[in-house]
């Protein structure tokens, strides 16, 4: 084992992400405050005012402009960062698609939160998953450490010449943004090596180009075909960067998915986000009772790791997906996509919808659902709303 140069501290999620951003040395940030992201913005403003981060922080008048401003800066060659949540993410939606279409490297941290109406400031994943078709790479953090690690990896992935796509990092509102946990942070020099300065600009006065003009139908579809290839190709890059990061931290990283106690499992939970930890706890307790259960954490939502899912779930009898968002008129998003990934495999997929709008979910909820399944109570879709 190589000597690892990092040190242990404790931070809340918002500050851990802000710290990673500081270490990534972006030159332009544009952020508009929204609960529960706000304390991250405040921390970033503090870093800049104290001179710890040399960057322009554009205090825009709304999220649409936040994404627009970082787009402009990214086009001009800046490493950029923005962050939002819920209504803010919806408000910037036009620009989310815009930057995805233009394939500009941008990192957007989304403190996941339910969407109005009715008003809710609490956590679910409806906002984050609503952006799944915008040609962004999308990752979900499990804990504060993950949010820190992912933020640094996100910049690398986004700017990789083989990828060139914006990256959205989701981390659960309040549950991670405001939770303080033990955190290993890397030394600045290590981060500098992992993340060299960005070299790429679309503004060159010797080669003036027209960025994002009209494309006729043939051109347009060709561009989208290339984007499809790039985002699918990014799976390998994400795994590669994850391995690289593992080397500098000495901590196990999981590129696209993580399987926890899957080996001989008969039934497996599938989750994404902070409640993966609660599911982990449930699996531990069930294993202690001799039950053959496991957990599949989907770390990367886009590109959806269908091949890996099929591979790691080979041999299990069934999967219980937990969705914290819902595609109304269809079903839980993970459930639908896991089902599609397992097409023709004979593995049964059961869908649980829970935690919507911050509704309480504890390890015991996971436990109870799994016990029901093991007792033969199968279902297609079940809402934990009692």
């Amino acid at each position, binding site marked *: 084992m190589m000597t690892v140069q990092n040190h242990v501290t404790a931070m*809340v999620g918002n500050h851990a992400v802000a710290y990673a951003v500081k270490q990534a040395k972006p030159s332009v940030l544009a952020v508009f405050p929204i609960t529960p992201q706000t304390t991250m913005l405040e921390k970033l403003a503090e870093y800049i005012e104290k001179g710890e981060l040399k960057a322009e922080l554009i205090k825009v008048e709304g999220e649409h402009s936040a994404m627009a401003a970082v787009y402009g800066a990214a086009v001009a060659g800046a490493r950029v960062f923005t962050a939002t949540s819920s209504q803010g993410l919806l408000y910037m939606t036009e620009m989310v698609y815009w930057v995805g279409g233009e394939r500009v490297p941008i990192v957007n941290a989304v403190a996941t939160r339910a969407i109005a109406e009715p008003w809710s400031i*609490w956590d679910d994943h409806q906002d984050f998953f609503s952006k799944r078709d915008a040609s962004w790479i999308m990752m979900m953090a499990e804990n504060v450490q993950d949010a820190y690690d992912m933020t640094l990896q996100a910049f690398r992935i986004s700017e990789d010449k083989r990828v060139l796509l914006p990256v959205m990092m989701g981390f*659960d509102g309040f*549950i991670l943004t405001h*939770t*303080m946990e*033990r955190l290993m942070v890397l030394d600045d020099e290590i981060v500098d090596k992992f993340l060299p300065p960005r070299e790429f600009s679309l503004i060159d006065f010797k080669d003036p180009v027209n960025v994002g003009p009209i494309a006729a139908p043939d051109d347009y579809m060709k561009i989208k075909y290339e984007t499809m290839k790039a985002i699918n190709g990014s799976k390998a890059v994400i795994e590669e960067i994850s391995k690289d990061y593992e080397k500098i931290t000495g901590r196990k990283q999981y590129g696209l998915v993580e399987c926890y106690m899957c080996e001989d499992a008969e039934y497996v939970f599938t989750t994404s986000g902070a409640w993966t930890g609660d599911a982990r*706890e449930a699996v531990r307790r069930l294993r202690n009772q001799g039950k053959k259960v496991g957990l599949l954490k989907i770390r990367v939502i886009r590109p959806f790791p269908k091949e890996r899912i099929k591979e790691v779930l080979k041999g299990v009898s069934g999967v219980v997906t937990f969705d914290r968002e819902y595609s109304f008129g269809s079903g839980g998003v993970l459930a639908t996509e896991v089902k599609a990934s397992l097409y023709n495999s004979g593995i049964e997929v059961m869908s649980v919808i829970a935690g919507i709008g911050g509704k309480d979910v504890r390890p015991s909820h996971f436990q109870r659902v799994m016990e029901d399944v093991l007792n033969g109570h199968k279902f297609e879709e079940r809402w934990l709303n009692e």
Partner: protein
Amino acid sequence: MKLEIILRGRGGMGVVTAGEILVKAAVIQGKYGQSIPSYGGERRGAPVTSYVRLSDEPIYIHREVYDADVVGVFDPSLFKVMNPLENLRDDGVLVLNTKTPVKLWKKTFYLDAVEIAEKLNLIIAGWRLVNIPMVGAIARITGVSLDAIHEAVIETFGGKLGEANAEAAKLGYEMVREI
């Protein structure tokens, strides 16, 4: 060690900060910690809760504490508006900030954190800052080292305020008594 703690007070008392200092202290001691504030549209004066986990092993769970080993009540008047002892285990410990000690649980500890705050002039906008003396008291009961608390407090507040609060933690640590 695997401890689950609930801290209860009112918005503006520094309940969340108290939880975070316990976590920082645990990490300084090489352990794991987690502080989850109750989240909502909190307002100054309204009841606030902070959940804390301290452990020798990584903490996976990201939920509130339902079965606490320790409950810290920062303001005795909370008993008039809620049951602060909800979710405290039968063999759990109550730590109470009060001038008039009453045995409200099998294991009840108390200290006069207001007096400590006044003594050290830890008063902001009319509020006596009772949170750090409470941290000291809870550290004593849970076995978190006073040195680690000292370091965490200095790191959090810095400067003169850090020194005063470190002293407050020490006094809380020393003055807490079982009824």
